[in-house]
C-alpha cells in the first residue's frame, strides 16, 4: 500500500513537473483548419505588427504549418541588388495562449482571441 502511495505521489509529481514544462515552454501550433475567421484575425495581427496593409503571405498554410512568412514590399524594377527578406513568424502556444513569435525580433505577440492547436510531433 505504501509502495502504491509512493508511486502515486511520484507520478503526481512528474505530472505536475511535466505540466509546468508544458506551460512554460512554447509549443509550435497551427490554427484550426478551415477557420476563415481565424485566418482573417491572424492576418490583421500581422498587419498591425508590420504597420502596413494588406500583407501578402508567403507559401504558408497556418492550419498546417506553424511557420508563417510575410512577403516584403516587392522590390521595384530599379532594385537589382535588393536585400529584402520575408518576415518570419511562428505560431506558438505559450502558457495556454496562442500567439505569434516574430523571429527577427524575438517578440511574442499574444492573440488571445485565436484558437490554436499544438502541432503533433
Amino acid at each position: 500500500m505504501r509502495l502504491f502511495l509512493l508511486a502515486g505521489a511520484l507520478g503526481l509529481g512528474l505530472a505536475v513537473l511535466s505540466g509546468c514544462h508544458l506551460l512554460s515552454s512554447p509549443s509550435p501550433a497551427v490554427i484550426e483548419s478551415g477557420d476563415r475567421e481565424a485566418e482573417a484575425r491572424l492576418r490583421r495581427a500581422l498587419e498591425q505588427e508590420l504597420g502596413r496593409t494588406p500583407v501578402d503571405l508567403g507559401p504558408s498554410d497556418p492550419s498546417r504549418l506553424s511557420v508563417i512568412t510575410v512577403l516584403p514590399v516587392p522590390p521595384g524594377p530599379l532594385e537589382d541588388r535588393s536585400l529584402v527578406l520575408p518576415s518570419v513568424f511562428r505560431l506558438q502556444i505559450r502558457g495556454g495562449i496562442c500567439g505569434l513569435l516574430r523571429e527577427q525580433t524575438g517578440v511574442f505577440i499574444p492573440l488571445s482571441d485565436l484558437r490554436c492547436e499544438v502541432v503533433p510531433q
Partner: protein
Amino acid sequence: MTVGVSGISDRVRSRGLGSFVLVLILCLAAGCGGGGSAAPAPVTPPPVSGPIWTQGVYQPASTFKDFCSVVRTGSDSQGRPFPDKAGSLAQELFWLRSWTNETYLWNTEVADQNPASFTDRVAYFNVLKTSATAASGKAKDRFHFTLSTADYLAQVTSAPEASYGAEIKVFANSPPRDVRVLYTAASTPATELVGGRPKLARGARILTVDGVDVVNGGATQAEIDILNRGLFPRTAGEAHTFTVLYADQTQRTVTLQSALLVEEPLNRQTVLTTPTGKVGYLLFNTFSPYSSEKALVDAMASLKAEGVNDVVLDLRYNGGGLLAVASQLSYMIAGPTRTAGRIFERLQFNAAAGTTNPVTGGANNPTPFYSTGLGFSVTNGAAIQSLSLPRVFILSTASTCSASESVINGLRGIDVEVVLIGGTTCGKPYGFYPADNCGQTYFSIQFNGVNQKGFGDYPDGFAPANASSAFVTKIPGCSVADDLSRDLGDPAEAMLAAALGYRTTGSCPVAPPAGQAPARTVDTGTPIEVSGRSAAAQILRTMRDLRLPTQTPGGS
C-alpha cells in the same frame, strides 16, 4: 563637429517663448481680456529661419527627416501613414545633405555645396555624388537617380504588365534602326502558332509596325508614336501588326494582341547529353519576382535527379534582383561542404559607418549562403537540393548585372571555378536602400558587396580571360558575342557551344562563330522612346541596355 538635435529643439523652444511674449505684449496693447468686443489684431509670427549651412558641418539627417515643403496626408499604397510634417524646402535639402554624408558609399568625395544655392530638391540630389571616374574613364557612380515616391510605389507591385511575351531590344534607335526579339516566353501571344510556327522568335527583326517602317521611317512624331505603341503596348488587348524578318531570312506579317503578363524568371531549362556526361542548362532572366525562389529550387532538384555533372547558367539577360535568391542559387551550385561557415556577400559601407549598417542602424551582418527556403515562394526552412559542383559555366553580356554578378563573385569567393562565356558584365558591385523623404524616393549608392575573400572591386565588370578590353576583371572563359541566329538552349548557339567546347577542351573557339549579334548597338539620334512603359520600367529597360547613366529621370 555636428550640431545635435537638441540644438534645434532649443531654438524652437526659444522661438516659441519669444512668440508667446510677443503675443502677450500685443494682447496687452490691444486690451485683450478687458471685456472689449473688438477682435484682437492678427498676429504675424516671426519668419521661420531655416537651418544654417556651415561647410563640412553636418547635423544628423534625422533632424530634418520628413519635414516637408509640401505635406502629404493619408496613407501610401501599402497602407502606411505618410510621416510628413510641415517644414520647408531648406529642411528637405539639409536632409539630403546629411543623409548623403551619413550613408553614401563615397561620402568623402562629395563636394559640400550650400543648399541655399538650390531651389529644387532633385537638382540638389544630383550633385550629391562623387565626380570621380573609374580606371576605365567611366563615371565612378553611374547609378545615382531619383523618382517620385508615387511612381516608385506604383512599380513595387508584382502586377502583370501589358506585353506580348517577347523581350524586344533596340540595337540601333536611329535610322537605319535595328529592333530585334531577344527571347520569347512560352504560352504568350508571341509564341502563338501561325502556319505552324510562332509569331515571334529569337532573332526576329521587326521591319514595320502598323504600317510604319521601323528601319528608316519615323520621320514624324506621329510615326514614332505608332512605333512605340506597337512595340511596347500600354494596355492588354491592343492588336498591332508587324512585318517580321526571321533569323532564317523568311519574312511575314503577323498580328499580335497584348496581354497582361508576369515574366517567368526561369525561361527555359534543359539537359544536354554529351559523351562526358549530362549538362544542365538554365536560362534565368531575373531574380526579382518572389517566384524566382521556387523556380530555381525546383529546377535544381530536377537537374540533380537527372544526374548532371555540369551546369551552364545563362544569365546573359539577367539584370539582378533579390540578393537572397542569388545566394540560394549559389548554394545550390556549390553545395553544403564548400559553403559551410562561409559568407556569400558582405556589405562594405563608407568608412565612418564602422561595423554598423548606417542605413538600418543595426549590425552589418553578411549574407550567408542560404541553404533552405526563405519563404518567398518556398516554405521557410524547407531543405533545398544542391548539386555540389566544383565549377559552373555562366553565360554573360553587358546586361548581366548586380545580383547576377554577385553569383559570379560569391562563388569565386569560395573557390568554385566560374567559367565566363560571352561578354563583359555590367560592373555593378554596388547597392542601395531606396529612401523616401517628402514624396521623393532617392537611390544613392550605399554599399559595395564583397565576397568571402573580401573582393568586390569590379566596377568595369567581369570579362572572359581572352577579352580585349582593359580595366575589366578577367576570369577564365571565352569572349563570344550573343548569337541571335539560334534559339537559346540550342547547343549550336554560339555562347552555349563555346561553353560546351571549353568544357571538353579547355579552350575557346578560334574564330567568332557566324551569325552573331548585329554590329551596331544602341546609338544616338532620334530614338524610339519606350513610352509605353512607366518611367521606372523604362529605366529598367534602359539599365538592361546600359544607358542608365544619362537617361534616368532625375539621374545625372
